[in-house]
């Protein structure tokens, strides 16, 4: 156990020490690093767009038949629909139309709502960000706090209980937990009938401060569901990171100075152990946007996840494809941010 064993996956061991202080070499290296990450992100995004397009086009299933399912349509009407959505063009020309549209932030048209996908997404982006953001912040705070407790005394009773509870919630299907909460706290039966609303985001007739309170009340159950399922990973990473730090020499020094145990943990060990969790938080922020699909579906939260679910059942290819690109893009963006921010925080991995 030495202090050098940190869980970083960046380009560790970059020759920072023997490089001449200041100078243009360092600036060039940093520029190269940033440029490299940016290129990777752009190439990934391009691949996502291409894959998304062909995944939803080449594979079986005819969008027009899906759109008109269950209704009698004449051949002329079908041809008209095809022309309207550009489906009569050859595939490559459809692709270039689509890619050109993307440059103008045009994600195509939803077959189901007959509205531009971009508008639909913008309408529902706010609720999703509100829910996902609140959930992530609460889960990260809770997980990091409990993880710091558990990791300080590994094998102790607090650690065992904490880990067991977190692992249990981690193993529970998100949507099931949400349904249970609805039965217990929101539906007409259960322990507290009607304590919280079962669906939606805000009461329709509320205004001003009332609307804010109503939104908060609607958010309680979705946020609790989200937090219960995702806080385990923050707990586990904080725990193992703190265990890695525990043997470090500077902690011995701190103790030798006569600091109390709690102070050693809070002031010295935890700040250093927090470093590896930064990457994880960013990565999760990217995933969480799509991770709320289940929570939003269960609680009928008017966000992107619910939109995706509704598009899936039609199936509304334009909408689903647009959301696919958006979800992947959010992960790519967050990965990029993590790559760029981490070296600022941890000098050991600076380029």
């Amino acid at each position, binding site marked *: 156990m030495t202090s050098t064993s940190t869980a970083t996956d960046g380009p560790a061991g970059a020759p920072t020490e023997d490089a001449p202080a200041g100078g243009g070499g360092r600036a060039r290296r940093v520029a190269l690093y940033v440029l490299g990450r940016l290129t990777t992100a752009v190439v990934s995004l391009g*691949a996502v767009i291409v894959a998304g397009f062909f995944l939803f086009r080449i594979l079986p299933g005819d969008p027009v038949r899906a759109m008109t399912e269950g209704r009698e349509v004449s051949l002329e009407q079908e041809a008209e629909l095809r022309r309207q959505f550009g489906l009569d063009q050859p595939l490559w020309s459809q692709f270039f139309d689509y890619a050109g549209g993307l440059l103008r932030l045009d994600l195509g048209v939803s077959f189901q709502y007959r509205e531009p996908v971009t508008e639909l997404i913008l309408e529902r982006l706010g609720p999703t960000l509100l829910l996902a953001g609140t959930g992530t912040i609460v889960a990260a705070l809770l997980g990091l706090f409990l993880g710091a407790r558990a990791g300080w005394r590994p094998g102790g009773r607090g650690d065992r209980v904490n880990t067991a509870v977190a692992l249990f919630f981690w193993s529970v299907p998100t949507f099931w937990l949400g349904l*249970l909460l609805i039965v217990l706290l929101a539906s007409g039966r259960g322990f507290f009938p009607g304590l919280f609303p079962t669906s939606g985001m805000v009461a329709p007739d509320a205004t001003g401060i009332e609307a804010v309170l109503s939104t908060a009340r609607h958010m309680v159950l979705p946020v609790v569901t989200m937090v219960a399922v995702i806080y385990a990973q923050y707990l586990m990473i904080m725990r193992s990171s703190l265990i890695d730090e525990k043997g470090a020499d500077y902690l011995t020094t701190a103790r030798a100075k006569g600091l109390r145990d709690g102070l050693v943990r809070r002031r010295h060990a935890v700040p250093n152990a927090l470093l590896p969790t930064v990457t994880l938080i960013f990565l999760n922020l990217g995933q969480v946007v799509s991770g709320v699909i289940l929570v939003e579906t269960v609680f009928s939260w008017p966000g992107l996840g619910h939109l995706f679910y509704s598009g899936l059942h039609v199936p509304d290819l334009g909408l689903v494809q647009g959301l696919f690109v958006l979800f992947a893009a959010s992960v790519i963006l967050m990965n990029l941010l993590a790559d760029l921010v981490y070296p600022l925080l941890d000098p050991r991995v600076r380029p």
Partner: protein
Amino acid sequence: MTGLDPRPAPRAPAPVPSPRVLARRRRRRALGRFARSYAHNRAGMAGLVSLLLIATAALTAPLFIDQAHLTVTGAPGQAYEPPSPEYPLGTDNFGRSVLDLIIWGARVSLAVGLLATVVSVSLGTLIGVTAGHFGSSGGTGGRITSTVLMRITDWFLVLPTLVLAVALAAVLPGGTGTIIAAIGLTVWPPTARLVRAQTLAVEARPYVERARALGGGHTHVMLWHVLPNVMPVVLAQTTLLVATSIIAESTLAFLGMGDPTTISWGGILEAARTAGAVSAGIWWYMVPPGLAIAVVALSFTLCGRALESVINPRLRENS
């Protein structure tokens, strides 16, 4: 490996044991050591026991459950009967026993979870070992292959797993095979990364160099020297992935992507929701399937963590 050898066991008249016997004895001893240190892990043992119980129930289900009672038309009871001695977990909206449904659902859920894991672990191991091996000893061409493979892995890693699985399940023809493929094709990247890292560590060992110096080709080194040493890590990862796959299966079923003709835990939950069990407060239709998923996923996770701590001495020291 020795069992695959077609040659008959050497008739060694001398008391000096042949290398083969020695190797077998060594392996048996290593296995014993492994089992003993696994048995020390109480959580791991609890997971193993619960898995064995559930697997036994799932495998022997046809012996004590009449399949006709699981069809909508042949349901034995009334709709929404609360739990009673006859139906320990009550009945669903068609009058089928929920307990029977759960036991029968274990067959599909476990099978899908295991098969999806086989797909993803095979894919991950293949890509990880190839990338690791050619990256460290394949020359320029090998390095390019390795880089390309890892770039593809990284790319899959950034795709939102659930969205991709749902998309695959939506565009492929419906059925259990599709679910397995959709899960298997989306959860492999972490395995590939892990296996590659382990392969690189193994490739740096002298015995791999010796094998290469003796004229061992790429396939030989990968199959006989790298793979056996990567297997422990893969095994632990496999157990953890089964839990992920079972939850993923229930999620896909819940989103309506499952095969409606088969009975799986996710399918039962989806049926319960569409039947209105949530608002009607029919808890015995909703709680058991979710609990079953949680118990199985937790058991696999516990086993996987126990295996990890046995294999990785650094973890053993800590916890």
